[in-house]
Structures are given as C-alpha cells and as structure tokens.
C-alpha cells in the first residue's frame, strides 16, 4: 500500500537529488552537458566566490530575523486568540487570511506599497511627518533587506500562530483553576504554566519555520532579484541565479548540496535535542 507513494517520492525527489550530486562533481557546460569530473572543484570555486559568502551571511540573518520576529509576534497573537471574546471567530479568520495568499502575489502587493514614487507606505509616513522625502525602499540594500524581512515575518505569522493556537487549545483548564485558587497572578500563571506547556509547540513552530524560511524564494526574488549589486541575495536566490541566469549549473548544484547539508544538520540537532528532553 505504500509502494505507489514510495515510487512517486523516489522519482520526484531521489532522482533529481542524485542528478544534483552528479552535477556538483563535474565541470558542466551552461547547457547542462557534463564535461570532466572535477571532484570538489565546484565547491572550491563557490567557497571562493564573494557573492556566495554575502548570500551565506544574508541567509543566516534572514532566517534568524524572520523566524525570531515571527515567533515573538505569534505568541501574544495566539494567546489573545485563545481567550474567549466577542468576534473571536472573525479575528481568527482575519489573522489567518494572509496564509491563503500566494507568497508571490503578496510580495507583489508589498512591492507596490513600497514603490518609491507612488507607493502608499511613503505617503503614509510623509503624512505622519516621519520622513521628509520619499524613500526608494527597494533600490538600496540598506532598506531593501529589512523590508523583505518585514514581509517575511508578516506572511509567516498565520501558520505560526495556528500551530501555537492548536497547542493552547489543547491545554487542560483545571490546572489554571487550581493556580487561581492558590492565588497565582495572571503573570505567574503565564510564566509557570502557559510558557512551559507551550514549549513543545514553540519548538515545532521554530523548526518548521527555520526550514521554510531558509528555503524561501519568492519574496527576495520578486522584490529585488538579489540586487542591487548582489547585496540582498540569500542562498536560494543565488542558487537560482547561478543555475538559470548565469549558466553555472555545476556551482548551483554545489550550493544546493551545501544548503541540504545545513538543513540536515539543523534537523539532526533538533531531533537530538528533542530526544534528550523526552529521555
């Protein structure tokens, strides 16, 4: 019964994976023809490439900032959505809404909102007296990257708060009753009951988000394509540019494998951490 699923997964995942390993070890023409076996030549070349190093640094900043920001915002959101209040169903629906919008389309809307000349963000900031002149947000790295991080956080909130909400709604109510009888303040209840009970769900949310954000492509590709001057590339966008724009498939394959190694290391670390906790 599991055979069809195994066959499909192997076909779509294992074959491309093997092909990428093979590519990474060869000198590859821009049309994908394998030439000489070069061993680790592609890896050596990519590690000496300054754009790769910038992309690597950006990737860590991007992942840490987006995941950190998302979790920090999502915990209070989930806590509020878990309390009983008028219109809670509507509030939940509204918070979940961006989840339904494709990342690519959401990015286009934000790109337009941050448009330097006619965008609504500049207009609002100017009307509030916060800036004197319109800012060309996406034309310079110093503003483009933070804008992309902000959009990244915003689109990750629905998924994250849904997971946390699921955790909160599964919590037993009687322990809160007991705590209240013992005279615990709401803050004490939060610190010593809610947070520890929520921990596993926060962990899950962090791990899933790290994997997802680390591989997130559309926001940066659509907003800046890694520019200006390769300054906003993260590894995925650089990988795509190497493979399909610059015609360096061998090196792109090497970047793929480096990224896979990072994802696997992270997951292994997490699994070990979890095993130690349950032991």
């Amino acid at each position: 019964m599991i055979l069809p699923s195994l066959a499909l997964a192997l076909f779509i995942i294992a074959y491309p994976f093997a092909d990428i390993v093979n590519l990474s070890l060869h000198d590859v023409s821009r049309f994908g023809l394998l030439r000489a076996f070069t061993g680790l030549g592609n890896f050596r070349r990519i590690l000496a490439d300054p754009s790769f190093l910038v992309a690597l640094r950006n990737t860590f900043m991007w992942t840490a900032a987006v995941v950190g920001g998302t979790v920090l915002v999502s915990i209070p959101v989930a806590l509020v959505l878990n309390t009983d209040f008028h219109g809670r169903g509507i509030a939940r629906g509204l918070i979940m809404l961006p989840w339904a919008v494709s990342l690519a389309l959401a990015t286009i809307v934000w790109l337009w909102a941050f448009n330097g000349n006619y965008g609504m963000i500049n207009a609002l900031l100017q009307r509030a007296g916060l800036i004197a002149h319109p800012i060309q947000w996406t034309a310079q790295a110093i503003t483009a990257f933070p804008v992309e991080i902000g959009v990244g956080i915003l689109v990750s909130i629905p998924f994250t708060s849904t997971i946390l909400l699921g955790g909160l709604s599964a919590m037993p109510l009687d322990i809160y009753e007991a705590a209240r009888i013992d005279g615990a303040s709401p803050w004490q209840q939060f610190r010593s009951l809610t947070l520890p009970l929520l921990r596993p769900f926060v962990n899950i949310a962090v791990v899933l988000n790290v994997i997802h954000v680390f591989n997130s492509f559309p926001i940066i590709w659509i907003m800046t394509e890694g520019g200006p001057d390769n300054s906003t590339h993260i590894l995925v966008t650089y990988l795509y540019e190497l493979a399909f724009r610059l015609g360096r498939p061998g090196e792109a394959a090497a970047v793929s494998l480096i990224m896979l190694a990072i994802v696997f290391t992270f997951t292994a670390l997490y699994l070990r951490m979890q095993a130690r906790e349950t032991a």
Partner: protein
Amino acid sequence: MRRDWKRSLLCWAALSPVLVLTLFPFAIMLSTALKPTAEVLIYPPRWLPIHWSLHSFVAMWQAVHFGVGLENSLTIGALSTLLVIAVSVPAGYALCRFPFAGRASYRQFLLTTQMLSPVLLVLGLFRLAASIHIDGTTLVDTRLAVIVAYAGFNLAFAIWMLASYFSAVPTELEEAAWIDGCGRLRAIIHIFLPLALPAIAVTAIVTFVACWNEFVVALTLLRSPSKQTVTLQVVNLVAGRYTVEWNQVMAATLAATVPVAALFIWLQRYLVRGLALGGVK
C-alpha cells in the same frame, strides 16, 4: 471563561496592530484595482479613487491571459491533488493500521522528503523533465511535469496529516464488520472511508491551495504563456518591466486570491485541530 465587553475590546485592541498589517495588502489591492489607469500614478497617492472604475478587471482579463492562467492553475491543482490523494490514502491507512516491517524507516523517509524544499532540487527537476522524451519533445514546458512534481513534493505532508487523522478513527468499528463476515476491503470502503472522508477533504484542500500558490517549480518548468499558472502570469506583468499597469496587476491579484481566501476562512478551525494533532504526535 466568561465573555464581557471590556475584555473583548481589550482583545481587539491588542490584535489591532497585527490586523492592520494583515489587512493592509487587501486594502492596497482594492484601492488600486478600483482606480482608472490615469489615477494610479498620481502624487501623492490617495486611498479612494476619484472616479470609481471596474475597468481594470476587464483590462487585466486580456493583459494577463487571466482565463488561460485560471484554467491552468485549476487543472494543475486538481490533478496534482487527485494524484496525491490516490497515493496517500492507502499509504496513510497502512501507516496507522499495519505494523509492517520498515515502518519506522518509512516514517523517517517521509520526514526527510518533507524537509527537501523544491527550490533545492529545482535544477535536478528541470533536468529530469528535459531528459524524458515524449512525442519528440521533452517534458519541459508541459503541465504534466508540474503536476507530477507537485504531487511528489506534497505527498509527505498529506500522508502525515492523513495518518494522524486516521488513527483517530476507532479500529473497533472495522473489527466488528469483520466479525459480521465483511471482507477487509469492503470494511474499508463501507466503514472506514465514510468516517475518514472529512480528513481526506481537508487534506485535499490544503494540497490544492499549496499547488495553487506554488511559484518556483512553475517558474522553472513552464515557459509559454499558454501553459502558465495565474501566479506566474501576474508576476510576469511586474518582473523586469519598465511600465507596470498596477491597477490591472492588483485586480488580477485580487481575483486570484479571493476564492482561496474564502476557502481558507471556512477551513480554519479544521486546520487548527489537524496541525495540533499532527505536529506533536
């Protein structure tokens, strides 16, 4: 917990910053889509149009090949979902009912494929599609390639979600049917499947939405406008253009988003439960 107005007000106030940011893109979409072209590029920009106009919805239908894109997105989404469900229902059932040899490693395998994002393998996928020849052409720039690729990448999540729902369906009912002389397959079809149907429906919708919203694989594999999905058609109107008809782009974005958004709001409570169950078990 009791509901009172003071608490409700406080809760809404606490949520308001996030809500504003969440709804902001929708406000931008509406505001721009309802303007005539002449009013889009005025400075300073204003929220409400001076002359309300639905023209951009008509104009984008042609400019974006919206009808074609819609058809492609629907075809690709529906067929991938069908393929995923056909393959993952038996797998999910086996995973939660039979203690077969290698079950642990199968789980491990699923978890691993779940972590592999399509972007990382997109180069290999492209070469895979290019290496398969049918009728003298390759699978590059065909919907079939995208359908199979989507199915492959959504499989692990679907099996995982189905298995966690399936294990909540009590085994006793099926066992009772066997005792009454009902065959294994008949028990599955008449007893198990009706009970599992809501779970299958939820999984199918989640898969469909994931396919509908996918970007990288479609960007790489689909080249000609007659085969591209809605998302790609809209992105093409913006990427690398000097003049962008923002009112048409926003109209198209809105039209591509609203059906999926409605589906999601309706699904929301099932999702909360499903993710909580699947995530921690």
